């Protein structure tokens, strides 16, 4: 369902600084994510995970440094842009679930956006509520529509900021399965998580941030497990 139609894309952060007034949210962040990797960002609140994801999504411009997408075509097609799920839903409360997906599908030149929207609504379990305004949805339903919005254009890079927020256990299982499927299809997945879950089990690499800097970056056994369980009780 979410098969990639463009070459897999990686992410390269080179000496990224991000300053908000007097606060240095990111300092000298440098690492590269290979196409098709599944990376978990861990760290305390305020460590810079969200800022890093927003820089990767190109919503926030870094104060210094460079972000690039190894493997990406010079002229990015619509689905070359990352799919991003933030703390907020990033969808319109005054539109229905289907209208939201159609809006973002059309803006991103998705082929047959109506069929794609229906497919995603079915997958996220909201097909029965397709004509309901998003403002009538529960937190978990909003999160499902937020995830559907991020997937609508079949992106080659997915950036998820605490994607399990508000999801019930079946929702978390669904999300883990979806991420596994898109990752197998070649999609690069970067997500910030707190604690171990079905979703963190997908990670092949962990990057830990503290005070805006990378303090650990590992792909191997015990140290990866330590990062993935960061924040667990």
């Amino acid at each position: 369902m979410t098969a990639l139609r463009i070459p897999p894309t990686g992410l390269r952060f080179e000496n990224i600084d991000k300053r908000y007034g007097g606060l240095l949210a990111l300092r000298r962040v440098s690492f590269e994510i290979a196409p098709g990797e599944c990376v978990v960002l861990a760290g305390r609140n305020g460590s810079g995970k969200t800022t890093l994801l927003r820089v990767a999504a190109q919503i926030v411009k870094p104060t210094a440094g460079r972000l690039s997408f190894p493997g990406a075509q010079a002229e990015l097609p619509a689905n070359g842009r990352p799919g991003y799920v933030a703390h907020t839903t990033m969808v319109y409360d005054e539109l229905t679930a289907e209208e939201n997906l159609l809006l973002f599908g059309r803006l991103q030149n998705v082929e047959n956006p109506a069929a794609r929207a229906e497919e995603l609504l079915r997958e996220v379990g909201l097909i029965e509520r397709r004509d309901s305004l998003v403002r009538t949805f529960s937190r978990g339903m909003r999160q499902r529509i937020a995830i559907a919005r991020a997937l609508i254009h079949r992106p080659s890079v997915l950036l998820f900021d605490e994607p399990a927020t508000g999801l019930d256990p079946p929702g978390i299982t669904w999300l883990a399965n979806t991420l596994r499927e898109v990752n197998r299809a070649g999609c690069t997945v970067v997500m910030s998580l707190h604690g171990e879950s079905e979703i963190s089990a997908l990670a092949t690499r962990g990057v830990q941030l503290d005070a805006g800097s990378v303090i650990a970056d590992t792909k191997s056994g015990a140290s990866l497990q330590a990062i993935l369980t960061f924040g667990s009780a």
Partner: protein
Amino acid sequence: MSLLSNTAILLGKELRTEFRSRELLTTTAVFILIVLVLFSFAINPGTEEAREFAPGLLWLAILFASSLMFQSCFLREQTNDTLSSLRLAVSDPFAIFLAKLIANTLFLLLTELLMLPFFAIFYNIPLWSKLPVLILVLFVGSLGISIAGTAISAISAQARMRELLLPLLLLPLLTPVLVMSTLVTASLLDREPVVQWKGIGFLAVFDLIFLTALWLFGEYLLEE
């Protein structure tokens, strides 16, 4: 091409959400109506005084009402951070501005057209014979107000004292539009009406300059 298609899609969204809630249209129409009614008590209808002051009052009412309208223009995009999802989705951020300013101009024009009969009645000024040119003046004036208002709305939505900042930035910026629109409208509503094409041309040039500036620098206004 993608700019135009993205603009059309976003304009559809703006119109759909507004006609569903009718928040902006209702607020703006009621505000203009209240101002026109209140001033009509102060000025004797049908007199030369009314003809002299009514156009200025009409444009002041439009200007103040539009500043109410612009408050929520970008603010409503912040509720769920939808501005970020739009920026991720569109290929040219100018499409976001273009859709919003077209929608604002349409809402403003619709409100003005609804208010014109009340204006004619309260100030006893016949409008019928001048209606086509008056609509042209309202269009170029409202377009100027919307272009500047949409830009300032994007700036003020990210500020802390946004309710105060918007009128503080907007009203001085729109002084030339207010003055010229009032002069052109007053000449048009005079007992011996004159169409001031130079004034209309001035308003059109103002629109063009501000639209070009928005096209060139709009992207920076959307940055966090």
